């Protein structure tokens, strides 16, 4: 049973949700595609495959995803890969192996994406986190 909003904030949330042009199935499908990215980030997944997982054309999918999450699917996939790479680098795995593990074929590309995302090169990040193990 739906409970009545108790605060001004909650009332505002409900109003915003009700006025959204997006339907429940839009949210469900992009969530599904997001789960797909979480699962297959280490593979060479392309946008057509991800859009297909959301049962949408590529262009429509990109537009809906951006409306829902505020970033493009490509940006989101990149963020997932950076987070996974950070975790792997902390384990001491060499940067070249981490690069392949998170779905990049090229170390320079991976290093650039990682630096843009974190402010550090993979090796610098690894070194910093090894010296501060807690």
């Amino acid at each position, binding site marked *: 049973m739906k*409970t009545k909003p*108790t*605060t*001004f*904030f*909650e009332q505002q*949330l409900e109003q*915003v*949700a009700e006025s*959204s042009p*997006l339907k429940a199935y839009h*949210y469900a499908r*992009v*969530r599904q595609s*997001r789960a797909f990215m979480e699962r297959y980030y280490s593979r060479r997944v392309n946008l057509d495959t991800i859009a297909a997982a959301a049962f949408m054309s590529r262009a429509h999918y990109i537009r809906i995803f951006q409306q*829902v*999450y505020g970033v493009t699917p490509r940006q989101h996939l990149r963020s997932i890969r950076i987070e996974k790479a950070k975790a792997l680098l902390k384990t001491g795995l060499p940067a070249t192996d981490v690069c392949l593990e998170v779905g990049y074929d090229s170390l320079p590309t991976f290093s650039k994406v990682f630096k843009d995302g974190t*402010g550090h090169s993979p090796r610098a990040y690894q070194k*910093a*986190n090894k010296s*501060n193990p*807690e």
Partner: protein
Amino acid sequence: MIRIHVTSVPVDDQEKALAFYTEKLGFIKKTEIPLGEHKWLTVVSPKEQNGVELLLEPMAFAPARVYQKALQEAGIPWTSFAVEDLEQEHLRLSGLGVQFTMEPKVVGPVMMAVLDDTCGNAIQLVQML
């Protein structure tokens, strides 16, 4: 390059806030520097100890209390923290006696809830779905 180093929540009592943010929410104390009658007191996530610090900022400027109180009464969160599993976190925090002004609810692409930090603020927890 400029980066975000610290953000803050205003608190009425720094020691009480430190206890809540560490013992209940699970943050870790990072810095504590005496500054007159108050201190520079920050906490960080245990998962990102070199990440953005949260300053537990003493609410010493009286006019700001009016703003803080108005936000709290409207249930508007001062800030927002990310969690991986909101329902689990809600259960854990409720078990520790934390009061929620909004129970977990799905809003578009996220699930969110709002808790009372006992220091004058509504705090939002968000899980990306």
